[in-house]
């Protein structure tokens, strides 16, 4: 079936460096993507979204890049801070506009 996955299950970065979290999706019908952040014991938090008619979108310290040719999504976090430590999920709407399919998640660890 269609799925959303991640290239790396864990990522460790130095505080202050930039982080890049990757996601591959397989459903070419997906036209909307969301990145979520989940801290321990909390619900997923909406970070940033992007529609398929865009290839880049920027937020506060975060940028999402979408490459539809290779079905690849990435989340870039600038100047990573200790508070960025969390699990990050990508999600896509390939099963219907109002339904999301989630990847397994990447755990981001910040080294001091």
């Amino acid at each position, binding site marked *: 079936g269609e799925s959303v996955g991640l290239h790396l299950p864990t990522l460790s970065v130095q505080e202050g460096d930039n982080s890049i979290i990757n996601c591959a999706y397989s459903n070419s019908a997906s*036209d*909307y993507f*969301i990145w*979520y952040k989940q801290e321990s*014991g*909390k*619900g*997923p*938090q*909406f970070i940033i*979204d*992007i*529609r398929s008619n865009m290839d880049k979108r920027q937020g506060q310290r975060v940028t999402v890049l979408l490459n539809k040719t290779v079905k690849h999504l990435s989340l870039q976090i600038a100047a990573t801070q200790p508070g960025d430590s969390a699990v990050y*999920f990508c*999600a896509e*709407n390939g099963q219907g*506009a*109002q*339904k*999301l399919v*989630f*990847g*397994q*998640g990447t755990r981001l660890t910040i080294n001091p």
Partner: protein
Amino acid sequence: DAGITQSPRHKVTETGTPVTLRCHQTENHRYMYWYRQDPGHGLRLIHYSYGVKDTDKGEVSDGYSVSRSKTEDFLLTLESATSSQTSVYFCAISDWGGAGWEQYFGPGTRLTVT
């Protein structure tokens, strides 16, 4: 948590007992969802609602039922809880955000079935 509350936040119950989890929103969003989150499986959709009294199944709906009698409340019921239903349950709400149907999550309910 975008005006979403879940109750209870933690529950321990015995196999075979009925359990109801409640999701309440103050955002007046049309769509509401119930997910479960398990290690190795990520977030999986159980049921969702697209309006009062309008619900549909997700990918893991067996053993679960839902009801939505008011816009703000979405109930998830385990008619006879089993150990395989031990999980963290998240409610989400969705509305059009300009680029797509944005989903926002509640704080979760940790359910343990012994």
